């Protein structure tokens, strides 16, 4: 290949790489989209380099998915220590009506030239949000609702013209749902479904159950059971229901009254314990902190405590226990071991 030809090919290759990155933007303008098609149609070499770049993008995604490193650790290599404060993210731009109508027209046009349109339909709000250990995150949805993720949580949000659906793959999420009578807001946690109109509620997906707590408004909770019909319950403010993961165990759905504020204190990075067992308090702290607490002594585990703590300060709990009880703390590399003084 001549030097000029090689230079040209490299230029196309670079442009193709940049295009793949551009096309993954959330806010791609219509003009940019047209620019891409114009660029792509310049020659078969453009198409070839573009497909090559997409293949590399796919492979890179695969490799990234298998990398379990925490972002904090990766960035620390650069010499900066990074914190994960809860942050308010800028709201996504809701689609304007005129844009929606242009796409409808486009869909009709493309039907005429015989192109399958399934992949051309309105881009969904199918987004995934993940928090790592000790991280909280607030996301504003296009409908005005807010979703707050607690530590180690993962949700998928799908907004369409007719429904608003959120899937909790794990963890704990607080919802502030904006009223939209035309579109029901549904939260899925395993096979439990929580439906809300305008309300504030918390959903905690645990390994063996889902716990729904309502702070304001009303929600309807349904879950399949081994009976013929799914079980349902309607909850108001200050009520909570715990739905087991296994169908056979879903026998009743009677809500109980709770201090809703306590259930959502995590939103201010606070943990509130009221006559909680030490085992329970330790387990709760361990959700938020890489530095874990360990209690083996069953007598200590069963002791009760009350208090308000900052979620990222397990040392405060350790201080509390060592100063007010006969508890000894031994610090090790990865954990703090608590035991009763002999």
């Amino acid at each position: 290949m001549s030097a000029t030809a090689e230079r040209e090919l490299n230029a196309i290759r670079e442009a193709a790489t940049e295009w793949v990155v551009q096309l993954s933007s959330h806010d791609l303008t219509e003009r940019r989209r047209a620019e891409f098609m114009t660029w792509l149609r310049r020659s078969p070499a453009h198409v070839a380099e573009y497909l090559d770049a997409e293949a590399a993008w796919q492979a890179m995604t695969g490799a990234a998915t298998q990398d379990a490193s925490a972002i904090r650790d990766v960035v620390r290599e650069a010499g900066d220590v990074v914190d994960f404060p809860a942050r308010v993210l800028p709201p996504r731009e809701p689609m304007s009506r005129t844009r929606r109508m242009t796409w409808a027209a486009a869909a009709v046009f493309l039907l005429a030239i015989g192109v399958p349109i399934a992949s051309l339909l309105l881009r969904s709000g199918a987004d995934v949000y993940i928090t790592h250990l000790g991280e909280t995150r607030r996301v504003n949805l296009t409908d005005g609702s807010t979703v707050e993720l607690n530590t180690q949580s993962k949700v998928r949000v799908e907004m369409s013209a007719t429904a608003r659906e959120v899937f909790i793959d794990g963890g704990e999420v607080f919802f502030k749902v904006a009223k939209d009578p035309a579109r029901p807001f549904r939260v899925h946690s395993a096979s439990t479904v929580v439906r809300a109109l305008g309300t504030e509620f918390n959903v905690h997906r645990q390994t063996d159950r889902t716990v729904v707590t309502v702070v304001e408004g009303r929600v309807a909770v349904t879950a399949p059971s081994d009976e013929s019909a799914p079980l349902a319950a309607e909850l108001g403010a200050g009520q909570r229901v715990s739905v087991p993961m296994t169908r056979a165990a879903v026998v009743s759905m009677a809500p109980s009254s709770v201090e809703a504020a306590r259930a959502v204190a995590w939103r201010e990075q606070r943990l509130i314990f009221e006559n909680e067992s030490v085992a329970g308090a330790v387990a709760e702290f361990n959700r938020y902190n890489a530095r874990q607490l360990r209690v083996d002594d069953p007598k200590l585990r069963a002791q009760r405590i009350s208090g308000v703590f900052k979620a990222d300060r397990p040392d405060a709990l350790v201080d509390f226990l060592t100063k007010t009880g006969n508890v000894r703390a031994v610090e090790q590399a990865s954990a703090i071991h608590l035991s009763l003084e002999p």
Partner: protein
Amino acid sequence: MASKDNPAKDRWLAELFDRSGRDLLRFLASRLPNSHDAEDLAQEVYLRLLRVDDVGVIRDPRSFALRVASNVAHEHRMLLRNRLEHSPEALEGQPAEDPGPYDRAWQAQEMRRLGEVLRTLNPTCRAIVLMHRRDHMTYQEIADFFGLSVGMVKKHLSFGLAACRDFLQRTRRASRPGEGRP
């Protein structure tokens, strides 16, 4: 498979496409630079893209382009299958219907080595790749996190992508079917 009620997700190609999409995936995964198949595919896709009168009307050009490529790959496979019935010699050198254990092992190794490539990137670049591709953060969110412009975030991502792409071209060029795999 995304149901009709749920709009198409932005998960990778596997969920966006039907069976013909898997052909494209397989094709791209085994993509060999300078091979006849690759050139034929690009040529045919190019011709079909030219048929679109008004490009401004296409809502999602990426999906569209990949859909066209996927259809061409599928038809190519169908054509080959018919041809192969009459010429057993041509059976050599064609990607199998399903990747056998040898192919899977090779793909796994490629994925591992690509992971090493990621680790050679500068920390910010690597973090951005993870945040976007693994953690599904948007460019704006990543930009806010680092205090960078969205343009810089894209530059980092392009750099990472170029590194992965160079690696793949080097390793795949070194291993064509019929010449044995490393």
